[in-house]
């Protein structure tokens, strides 16, 4: 089945053959994978998907991969949980958590995009993959490169804390710490990507890499029994994920795989200290004003998001909206999810839960409609966000009477 037409510029529509390129040579717009949906209709069915593996690769026909899957065979198909305790707390009828905090192997949704990018890198014949990252992306690229027996270069700002690089170093990549300001490191990495022509997953492989995010949306629909929820709240950093979840829903609809109407509204969640996309939405403008990030939500800290305009357009097109969360609200959101559903998410998940709560409390999201909250990363990787904020120890001497007394004290405190 010939399913791909190659690449296409999202701005001017110019077409390119399938190659490791990401920018239109004419207008400098971003390139996107162009599918032959006519060839896919009737071939990709609910049955063909269900016959696939219990991973994101059950949607392989809707991903830009031609040959065999090279790495990340077990990525995705994460739990979609009916979160009734959280729903009760929020005063809502139907709340679901799409839980990529347990995505194999590196505990974030980045495994989806990296599995596609590294598989594509193999198809293009690269022997080296690379990325510049301060967190989840670095973990995932290093892990998948190790699995695929590829060389990997991971670039980080030199002042990054040691704790953040251990979960990358363990996979034995070549880690390059670059001294300089964030802007200098960022520009250098762009120039390295341009010069060395490695498989830089989020640069020259970006059109393929970003398609992996669609599987998050495919899974939501399939796990809901081939229906779409009324509302999906998505954390936004570069802005790609929200556009790809919406693209996934549109693709399934176009292929005739969704029952009923698809009136899903898409919402962007960002931190108050780094929320340029939500600011666009609230000001109802397509002008993105870059910001200097200042937030505990490090995994969403992108001040000039490349897909910010498209994320804004997605919320407009679907009739959704956006909401900011302060650092305090982010922590409260993390703790709320943990104590109601037993899920420890990273700060980005706290942003999403907090934004959802505000959207409900302000009446933007009706309480009686179905809501999916996107949880995209695991709290165990960055527990420092909670240091000093939790202290509920009961300290006793090693005697039964000491415990009896402590228990009595606790009961009297909660009475």
């Amino acid at each position: 089945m010939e399913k791909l037409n190659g690449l296409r510029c999202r701005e001017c529509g110019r077409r390119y053959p399938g190659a490791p390129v990401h920018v239109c040579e004419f207008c400098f717009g971003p390139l996107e994978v162009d599918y032959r949906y006519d060839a896919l209709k009737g071939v990709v069915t609910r049955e063909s998907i269900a016959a696939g593996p219990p991973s994101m690769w059950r949607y392989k026909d809707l991903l830009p991969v031609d040959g065999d899957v090279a790495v990340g065979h077990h990525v995705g198909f994460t739990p979609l949980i009916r979160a009734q305790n959280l729903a009760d707390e929020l005063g809502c009828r139907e709340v679901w958590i799409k839980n990529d905090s347990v995505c194999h192997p590196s505990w974030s949704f980045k495994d989806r995009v990296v599995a596609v990018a590294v598989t594509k890198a193999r198809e293009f014949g690269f022997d080296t993959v690379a990325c510049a990252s301060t967190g989840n992306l670095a973990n995932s690229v290093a892990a998948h490169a190790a699995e695929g027996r590829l060389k990997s270069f991971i670039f980080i700002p030199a002042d990054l804390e040691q704790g953040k690089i251990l979960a990358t170093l363990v996979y034995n990549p070549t880690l390059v710490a670059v001294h300089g300001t964030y802007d200098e490191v960022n520009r250098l990495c762009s120039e390295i990507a341009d010069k060395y022509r490695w498989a830089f997953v989020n640069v020259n492989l970006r059109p393929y890499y970003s398609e992996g995010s669609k599987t998050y949306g495919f899974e939501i629909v399939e796990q809901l029994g081939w229906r779409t929820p009324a509302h999906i709240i998505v954390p936004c950093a570069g802005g790609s994920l929200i556009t790809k979840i919406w693209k996934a829903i549109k693709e399934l609809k176009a292929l005739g795989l969704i029952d009923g109407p698809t009136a899903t509204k898409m919402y962007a969640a960002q931190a108050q200290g780094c929320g340029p996309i939500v600011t666009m939405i609230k000001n109802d403008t397509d002008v993105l004003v870059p910001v200097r990030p200042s937030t505990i939500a490090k995994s969403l800290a992108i001040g000039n998001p490349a897909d910010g305009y498209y994320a804004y357009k997605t919320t407009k097109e679907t009739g959704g909206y956006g909401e900011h969360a302060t650092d305090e609200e982010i922590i409260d959101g993390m703790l709320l999810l943990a104590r109601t559903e037993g899920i420890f998410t990273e700060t980005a998940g706290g942003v999403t839960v907090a934004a959802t709560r505000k959207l409900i409390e302000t009446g933007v999201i009706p309480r009686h409609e179905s809501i999916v909250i996107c949880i995209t990363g695991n709290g165990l990787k960055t527990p420092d966000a909670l240091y000093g904020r939790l202290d509920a120890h009961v300290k006793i001497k090693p005697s039964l009477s000491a415990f009896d007394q402590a228990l009595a004290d606790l009961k009297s405190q909660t009475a």
Partner: protein
Amino acid sequence: MGTTTRLRLRLTFPTHLVQEPIVYRLVKDFDIVINIRRADVKADHGWMALELDGEPGALERGVKWLKEKGVQVDPIERDVISP
């Protein structure tokens, strides 16, 4: 002109610079050849995706001057560093 280098950059102009001839000065004062590929300039804000050709030293000085003026200078991909 000796060896030239080519850069693809995205410039974002804050409100207070929209009325200044920034790009003209970049070309004139630093001897840089520019080719604007895409842009959106409004009354209070603007951005430009452009290609710059020039001697490496001139390009670096030009970029430094842009930053000092308050222009945000990013590679065409914008954030290459991902969380």
